[in-house]
């Protein structure tokens, strides 16, 4: 695929990649949120990392909870 076609024709994304593609999106959310919230830009990378870990753990917990409800709900 040429560079021009990259922004014209859609890519074929395998279904197994969907959850992994969530990570860059979470990184973007954490970066922008912490960039406008932090008082000290030197601490920014650490704060982004911590928030990203919070979001990943939270989403995993939510996913596990919903899976349990679907599997074992009478």
């Amino acid at each position, binding site marked *: 695929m040429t560079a021009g076609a*990259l*922004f*014209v*024709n*859609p*890519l*074929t*994304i395998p*279904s197994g990649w*969907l959850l992994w*593609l969530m990570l*860059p*999106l979470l990184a*973007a*959310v954490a*970066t*922008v*949120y912490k*960039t*406008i919230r932090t*008082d*000290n*830009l030197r601490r*920014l990378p650490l704060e982004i990392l911590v928030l990203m870990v919070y979001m990943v753990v939270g989403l995993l917990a939510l996913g596990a909870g919903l899976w349990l409800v679907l599997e074992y709900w009478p």
Partner: protein
Amino acid sequence: MARNPDKSKPIPLIALLLAWLVPGAGHAYLGRTRRAVIIFLTVSATFWAGVAMGGVMTVDHQAERWWFIAEMFTGVHGLIGWHRAQRVYDKVPIDRELEMSSSAEADPSLHQQMLIDAAMQAKGVVLVHPTDTVARAYAGVAGLLNLLCIFDATMLALMGIAGEPVAEGVARREPQPREAP
């Protein structure tokens, strides 16, 4: 927390417009240049990563109206994406005879939409699952993140805050009084 006092008070409307037009420009206007660069790079990369995955029809106001509204918050990026999608719509070769015959049918707009879909499919630009979800989520979330930045820049300007915040506990270097000889 103490803030750097600024002589000229920022104008909220300018901060709002700049923050919408170019992601991060609102913060640059308020003297927060490093934050502005980070915001610009993050929002732009997220938006164009979505367009790279979904192609030119990621910013499609006819297919996904709510995602389109979110994408428009990226300012110049969203406008470029919309313009590119419109150019594709304009170039769709619809058979005029079929279009005329469709006017006699019960729902001509539905028939016309089918013609457009067929032409898009022939050009290979139609978004299908799961690429459409991922691409529009990336581009739309980029817009929503910039909405957060627009709100932040406008509120800072309304409060008259400009420049980087000065963290508490950071001692300011005051001029020392001269000792008498």
